[in-house]
């Protein structure tokens, strides 16, 4: 079974979100990186870019596939993971840790509550598998 930390929230497009004080850190799930295979490139927006919930904010490329990244919440990007430039494999090796992608200052607090809980995401994956 896929690794789904209980303390995170999730999207149906397989991003995770973690609350860190006033900010939210975002990455892709263990399941997503497994589906993509070896990640070779991650394209992230500049600092200060405004992202919108459910809209794309970047692209992740593997050897044989490419996938849009969807923002879990609306807000402004205050950090992005520069380490992924030289080491995209971190997304595969440590998707919930060093493979994080962006940190957002949320602009609409209601977004958080619309995200899936770990349990809901697990259920979503189970349903999708059938």
């Amino acid at each position: 079974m896929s690794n789904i930390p209980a303390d995170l929230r999730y999207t149906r497009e397989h991003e995770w979100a973690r609350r860190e004080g006033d900010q939210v850190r975002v990455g892709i799930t263990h399941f997503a990186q497994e589906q993509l295979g070896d990640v070779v490139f991650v394209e992230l927006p500049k600092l200060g870019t405004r992202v919108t919930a459910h809209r794309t904010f970047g692209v992740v490329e593997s050897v044989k596939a490419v996938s849009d990244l969807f923002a879990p919440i609306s807000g402004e990007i205050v950090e992005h993971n520069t380490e992924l430039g030289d080491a995209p494999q971190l997304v595969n090796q440590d998707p919930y840790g060093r493979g994080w992608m962006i940190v957002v200052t949320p602009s609409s607090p209601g977004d958080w509550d619309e995200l899936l809980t770990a349990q809901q995401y697990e259920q979503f994956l189970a349903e999708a598998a059938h």
Partner: protein
Amino acid sequence: MRYLPTTDRERQQMLATIGAGGIEDLLVRLPAKARLDRPLAIGPAVAETDLVRELRAMAGKNADADSHVCFLGAGSYDHYVPSPINHLVLRGEFFTAYTPYQPEASQGTLRSIYEYQTMIAELTGMDVANASIYDGASSLAEAVLMSRVATGRAEVVLPGSLHPLYRRAVASYCQGMDLRLRDAAAPDGVVDPDAVRGLVTEATAAVVVQSPNFYGCLEDVAALSEIAHAAGALSIVVAAPVNLGVLEAPGRQGADIAVGEGQGLGVPMSFGGPNLGVFAATQALVRRMPGRLVGATVDLDGQRGFVLTLQAREQHIRRAKATSNICTNVALNALMATIYLAILGKQGLRKVGELSTAKAHYAAERLAAIPGVSLRFGAPFFKEFAVRLPKSPDQVVRKLLREKMLAGVPLGTFDRNLRDCLLVAVTETRTREEIDRFAAALEKAVA
């Protein structure tokens, strides 16, 4: 029947294995009303001897550069094609192979493309070159589309000295896009930097410059690149690699993308195609590049090998979101160019450029000495130049054709203001004797 090995007896055996009574049983999904109920009206099969005779007769009606002395250029040039090229590209392992998607069975193609990418990157002074695009014009169109994606801006400045057929192709490629083309005047045969400066804004994705340009004149590429960069736009330089043994590399003149026609590198003129679209860029743009890229890697045993790489850029993975729709490249022509550059080498390519420019300048001097004939533009030129004639260029061309000379391209077809001008190209393959004969014939024709 020719090229069809299956005999009637084998056909019956195969149908029996399938469990079909006849070929009709295999076509059951084609409704009767969809079927063609007559033979195609394309005539019967023609035997090889008859067909060769027919095609020789057709070919014989054309004024080719073997039977005529060729001073035509404008995007296709009569450069020297060393003999080994044809012998090597006719090896079936090269010309009957597919796109190298199965790298273990395609190392020959992949290695030659890696060599090609290296040579083009070296010649253009850019970081990376792709495995080729159709021709110079479509390469430029792809560069323009790429500049829009890379900058998120929607205007491109084109020089008035750009090959008019390239401009047309760019406009055609962009017509469905939200992209505006702005034309900068080139009144004296080179683009006016002030005109470019006046058109560059925060909305400019790229500034294009071609050098030598359509008229054969050399542009101040570095200055135009600076204008582009000052506004945060990209510099796209159109340059033919065959000239880059002598001329400065676009990469050292500020180019972000260098494109151009590679036909001069050992590819036959073939009435304009297939040509060789050269495409190179800086490292920063590599993930936006259109077309195939070959990269080095290792196999399971750690042995060096080559693969198509960064494929996530391409249409077969990214589909509607791809940078470009290109799939087919011109690998075999890229191979011709690779073999050409290997044969010419470091010294030979420079010599091709030196001979071309020397002979072109000699020809320009000879022609300009004819009463009533003058050079149209004052700017420095490379191997091609425009002359003003006292008589209709079309007429002059017709007269010289009778002398078995292809005199040049009448410019009136492209620009009414230049309807008294002829564009003349001289490569290393022309001799002094041919140039003198050309000058004498032209003098007679305009007298």
